[in-house]
């Protein structure tokens, strides 16, 4: 809240902007510089930022946020089918519908707190998932998933249609447009879809930052610490939690809409409980309640999902080819459990290590490193009283 804080915030925003702009270059050496994965980084980043507004600030753990992601995707694809391949109306509808959906679910689920709230959200999400598979097939196209077809009306740009399926675009700029540039000896792909999603993530991040620093955010933090006390302080906590729930639902819907913008199809599996669990993992892994943690967590999980799952045994043999033959086989047979289909195992181990040793997530580890690098390991009390002096003055 002090001058120091606002300076830190500025650095943080600049950092995020730079990371997004330079993403394709920075991540190239890690094998993650291709558009498809980069898009996932920023889109799931938005999802996790939104989830963190609810979970990180109020402590309400929703296990059904994937429902909003799915609703966002379906809404966006319907917009592509009915109106136009332009992503703007699709994104707007995705946010509106998911917001309304969150209002409904939040209104009911927020009557309870703690584990009961989590179970209610989980139940609602699973209900949506099953409905999408069964009763709602006319809207969701069931198991096949909803996709764009030649025969769709597309009122606004039906005229431009030719043989191939139309491409999602932003006022004519195709989402899949990619410029291949040779830079620093690397083959860098600058993709339009990635930069559009990235810019939206920057805006989403900035809005979340403002929320965190606002009186509204302060009330949400108070709810997390002692909701009962807040009520006795004259604050009606229910509308605060509901607002936070709806905002995070809109973020999830936006992420779902963007997923459809980069790849115009929507399936029910996007709403499944594993997808809801994934965003919880992202937030906790990165650091719940921190600004950068959720983005970091989303990046790490999507990286593991895409990179580790791509490895197979023969590639591992190459990696460990420097070892003597008998050792090589042993190492490969053990480590192959952790790649390919087994990437979940790697993620599980990583998650356990983080929760046990760094309860504050990757951000806590990062902060510890910064402290170490600055030389002195200051006790919490010392830094707190130093902060006190700043505020008191």
């Amino acid at each position, binding site marked *: 809240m002090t001058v120091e804080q606002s300076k830190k915030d500025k650095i943080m925003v600049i950092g995020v902007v730079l990371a997004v702009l330079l993403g394709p270059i920075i991540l190239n050496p890690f094998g993650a510089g291709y558009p498809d994965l980069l898009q996932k980084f920023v889109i799931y980043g938005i999802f996790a930022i939104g989830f963190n507004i609810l979970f990180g600030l109020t402590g309400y753990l929703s296990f059904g946020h994937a429902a909003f992601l799915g609703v966002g995707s379906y809404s966006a694809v319907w917009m592509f089918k009915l109106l136009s391949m332009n992503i703007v109306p699709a994104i707007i509808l995705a946010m509106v519908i998911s917001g309304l959906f969150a209002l409904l679910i939040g209104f009911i689920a927020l009557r309870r707190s703690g584990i009961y709230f989590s179970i209610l959200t989980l139940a609602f999400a699973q209900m949506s998932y099953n409905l999408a598979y069964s009763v709602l097939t006319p809207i969701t196209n069931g198991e096949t998933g909803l996709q764009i077809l030649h025969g769709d009306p597309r009122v606004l740009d039906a005229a431009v249609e030719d043989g191939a399926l139309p491409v999602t675009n932003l006022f004519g700029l195709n989402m899949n447009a990619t410029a291949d540039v040779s830079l620093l000896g690397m083959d860098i792909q600058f993709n339009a879809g990635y930069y559009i999603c990235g810019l939206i993530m920057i805006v989403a991040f900035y809005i979340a930052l403002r929320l965190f620093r*606002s009186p509204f955010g302060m009330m949400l933090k108070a709810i997390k610490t002692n909701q009962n006390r807040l009520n006795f302080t004259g604050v009606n906590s229910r509308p605060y939690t509901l607002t936070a729930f709806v905002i995070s639902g809109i973020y999830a819907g936006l992420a779902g809409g963007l997923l459809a913008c980069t790849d115009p199809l929507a399936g029910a599996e996007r709403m499944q409980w594993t997808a809801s669990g994934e965003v919880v993992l992202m937030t906790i892994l990165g650091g719940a309640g921190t600004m950068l943690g959720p983005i970091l967590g989303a990046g790490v999980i999507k990286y593991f999902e895409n990179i580790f799952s791509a490895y197979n045994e023969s590639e591992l043999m190459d990696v460990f080819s420097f070892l003597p033959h008998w050792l090589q086989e042993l190492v490969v047979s053990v480590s192959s459990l952790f790649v390919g289909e087994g990437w979940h195992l790697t993620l599980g181990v990583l998650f356990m290590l983080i929760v046990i040793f760094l309860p504050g997530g990757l951000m806590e580890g990062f902060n510890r490193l910064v402290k170490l690098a600055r030389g002195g390991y200051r006790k919490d009390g010392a830094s707190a009283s130093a902060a006190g002096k700043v505020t008191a003055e």
Partner: protein
Amino acid sequence: MSSILKVQGINKHFGGLHALNNVNLDVEQGKVHAIIGPNGAGKSTLLNCFIGRLTPDTGTVDFDGTSLIGLKPHEINQTGVSRVFQTPEIFTELTLLENVMIPALAKRDGAFKPSLWSSMAGETEIRDQAMNALSEVNMGGKAGMTAASLSRGDKRRLELAMALVQNPKLLLLDEPTAGMARADTNATIDLLKTISGKGLTMVIIEHDMHVVFSLAEKISVLAQGTVIVEDLPEKIKGHPKVQEAYLGGAHL
């Protein structure tokens, strides 16, 4: 003198226990009214009925012309009733300053105002109010500390600051000095005296007779859920019924 809080015919049962039995209470505007009584007499239960934590089975609680029965806790607070809890209830993860800014915001903005886009840093007026309240309880120097790191006595003083910053019409104090060192107790008594000198009405529950007799202008003695005596402090001291309630009828 007009009464600001009028309590009539309160009954409250917990299963078979008749915790409050036809309790009447009249708190006069601007006075310090103490409620004393042995353990289990129903003092805290009575206070919980004022703030909406409990709903009495029968009876009325009228505050400044408004009935408090059936109102939610935040609605009762918004009518101008603030409370200091017996066990400290604070926002442990937040700083002291933030702890006091929250009730100040609640006082200014009402029960719900989604100020999503403004910044806490821009709330200079609220910050000044909070700093003043903290200085009043002698904790201005600790404003940036996390509340969890406070001692129990300091937590009580923080709670007092949280109540005072709202500039309430009625302050309910549940054992405000419990867990405090003697020096802190005396400082708190002086503080409460100053505040009551400004005309703030207080209802105070207290075990420490030193505190009660230094502050109270009227005392109600509660025993087994009923008010057995209500009188001026000097008349309470030697009252036979009071001695009986405290000492179980063993005459001295």
